[in-house]
């Protein structure tokens, strides 16, 4: 009896000695995790969030159930406010996109700042293609810019809202080349594309997933890629820099954030989790299918990215004539 008791005590002491080290590295989620997307089912952030969840499930990386929650409204502010309101809760994550960085700059009513949240990771970057119809007389980007210079304001670009990436790239190009062409906002990608295909506008800066099929079918021609390095799907198309038009990088990125004030172990855990996910074969296939570029950054680097990129955005928006409130 006494010996067993001694052994038990001894074992407990030995384990107890080892415990503190494990406890520090050992944070794991204990409840289902909520992943917040700022738009409804089928939208960009929603589909991305669901892809994350499904990849984690397929690779058996998730210890608990993860569920996507759509917190729609306020142009994205509802989701961001929700994350801020969940201060200290390590079982809530949000899928951030570049919108989360531009929104606080232009919307006075927004009260949540992404720079106040806990950055977890950046996961992917969405490149873009500058496309025209195949019937267009412009064969290179230089042709297009020359045409724009010859007739200021005559060329038309279809795109989304003025704070979205396609307009920001347009602004930077116009400023750096001293030219001007107009921007026509359409709320949906389908309308933008059909405006271009129908010849009602002259160019568009579109994501490869939107325009890729049209290019493959020979309806659209890519003049340049808005990306650092050439995409594997478009080996013959110059990047903006290679085409002779170096501009500041307007990054359309996605990643994960957590509410402010969560324990450092939780951050480390999530960082590791999504790093493993990014390296998995399932995720690589997802990136390839959707023509994203993997762009994993650690939590610390992501936080730095937020601040630096928001500053860049502020400058670009101000130059574009958009009213900046912060």
């Amino acid at each position, binding site marked *: 009896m006494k010996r067993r008791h001694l052994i038990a005590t001894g074992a407990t002491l030995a384990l107890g000695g080892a415990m503190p080290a494990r406890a520090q590295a050992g944070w794991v989620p204990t409840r289902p995790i909520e992943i917040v997307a700022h738009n409804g*089912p089928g939208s960009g952030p929603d589909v991305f969030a669901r892809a994350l969840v499904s990849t984690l499930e397929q690779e058996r990386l998730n210890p608990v159930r993860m569920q996507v929650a759509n917190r*729609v409204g306020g142009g994205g502010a509802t989701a961001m406010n929700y994350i801020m309101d969940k201060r200290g809760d390590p079982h809530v994550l949000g899928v951030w996109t570049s919108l989360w960085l531009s929104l606080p700059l232009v919307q006075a009513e927004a009260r949540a700042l992404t720079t106040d949240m806990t950055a977890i990771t950046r996961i992917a970057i969405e490149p873009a293609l500058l496309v025209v119809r195949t019937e267009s007389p412009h064969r290179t980007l230089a042709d297009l810019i020359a045409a724009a210079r010859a007739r200021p304001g005559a060329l038309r670009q279809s795109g989304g809202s003025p704070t979205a990436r396609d307009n920001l790239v347009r602004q930077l190009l116009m400023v750096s080349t001293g030219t001007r062409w*107009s921007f026509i906002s359409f709320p949906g990608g389908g309308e933008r594309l*059909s405006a271009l295909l129908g010849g009602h506008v002259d160019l568009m800066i579109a994501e490869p997933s939107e325009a890729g*099929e*049209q290019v493959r079918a020979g309806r659209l021609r890519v003049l340049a890629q808005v990306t650092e390095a050439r995409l594997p799907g478009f080996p013959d198309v110059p990047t903006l820099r290679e085409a002779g038009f170096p501009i500041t990088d307007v990054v359309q990125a996605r990643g994960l954030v957590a509410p402010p004030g969560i324990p450092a172990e939780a951050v480390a855990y999530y960082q590791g989790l999504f790093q493993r996910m990014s390296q998995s074969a399932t995720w690589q296939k997802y990136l390839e*299918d959707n023509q994203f570029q993997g762009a994993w950054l650690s939590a610390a680097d992501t936080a730095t990215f937020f601040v630096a990129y928001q500053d860049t955005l502020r400058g670009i928006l101000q130059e574009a004539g*958009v009213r900046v409130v912060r």
Partner: protein
Amino acid sequence: MEVLGGLGNGFAVALQPINLMWCFVGCFLGTIVGILPGLGPAATIALLLPLTYGMDPTGGIIMLSGIYFGAKYGGSTTSILLNIPGEASSVVTCLDGHQMARNGRAGAALGIAAIASFIAGTFGIVALTVMAPPIAAFALRFSSPEYFALMVLGLSLVVVLGGNSLMKALLSLLVGLWLTSIGTDLFTSQSRFTFGSSFLISGIDFMIIAIGVFAIAGVLESIKAREENTALPVPGTLRELLPSRAELKACRFAFANGSIVGFLVGVLPGAGSAIASFIAYGIEKSVSKHPEKFGTGVPEGVAAPEGANNADSGGALVPLLTLGIPGGGTTAILLSALVLWGVKPGPLMMIESPQVFWGLVASLYIGNLMLLVLNLPLVPLFAQILRIPLYVLFPIIFGLSLVGAYSVSDNVMNLVLLAGFGLVGYVMAKLDFPTAPLILGFVLGDAMERAVRQSLTMSQGDPAILVERPISAVMLTLAALILLTPPAMSAWRRHTKHQKGSPS
């Protein structure tokens, strides 16, 4: 012919037992989703997507399309029985559909809705089969000036929908135009009429206004009038629960009207199905021999919009399947589903994945038939819902409205707005203002403003672009015709009566 060959192969695929099963599952789910508020087809498809990862793409798209079409069938049920629009395109069905129910013709209304949906849905699919590529090419010629003309066509219907006082109808319309501009301006990111509220930045959702002004206000009005019956009239015999021959005969033009208008509007990316149903309803009323009866419960007032919103689904598949361009909303999710399965929707899809394309098209025929068979026998059953005593029915209507409103975005503000619009609808009815123009203004206002601003930017400020292009000119002429037809027709009738010298 190539089309027949493709279609033949398609039927071979669609008639496989497994695909028939997926078709049935989709249709069934879609009908339920359409009937119940709180779940739209888009959200349902998005939720089911992960379960379909390993599926064969043909089976998968068959099922999802079943949901898409089924929801349109189901959406009319609550519109007719309870005056709660099931989804945006069912709003117009409330106008005459619910009145038919109050007149004791609920079964007939439900039956006509199902039949119109079937006829127009089939028309849409036939058009998709036979004319998809040329229609898609034609649709590309539509851009902002043509959309503007389409909206003008829609707005000209306010005259037709106005009722007694044109002035009040116009005021109603203008309020609708104002309500739709609440939110963020797309072109400049300027907030308009948001009163500093972060909630209003995204604008007010259409369903909140529609459910408030129709369902909630309707209950309040019934309570005020203190109807003596404790329940609405429901006929006893089966024959009376189905549409009569006379009612079906009255709908002949409406079936054609709904089919064509719905399909054409559906083909245009970005034009919602609510627009299609409004235009079909307006055209029906303006060519009717008894326009003043619209709004009191005429069967063609149900057939035209219901047909239009089903043909619209077929039309929306044209740009999706031939060009890979989603019309918006549900078709956008269908697109991501196709991408998920490795099918590449785009101009090459018909060539590279013919079995998916033709298998889908063939199964749409089957699905449409399945939906008719599913829905028609349920008509007498659903009509019994009206036997529920009002003191239970009214709470249920309130409850369903609250669920529907909350599902827009999980925010109690939606419920507050719902209550607000319920009061607005009640007050409007008491002050004798028609509510349909308010809804019409809301649906069209946003789109029309965008179309004008886009057009003027395209033409660098030259307003001639709005009228000079052939397609928009045609539609503007049609709008003028709609405005002029009712007074012209009544003048003609007065003239012929006078000539015949008939004693009045």
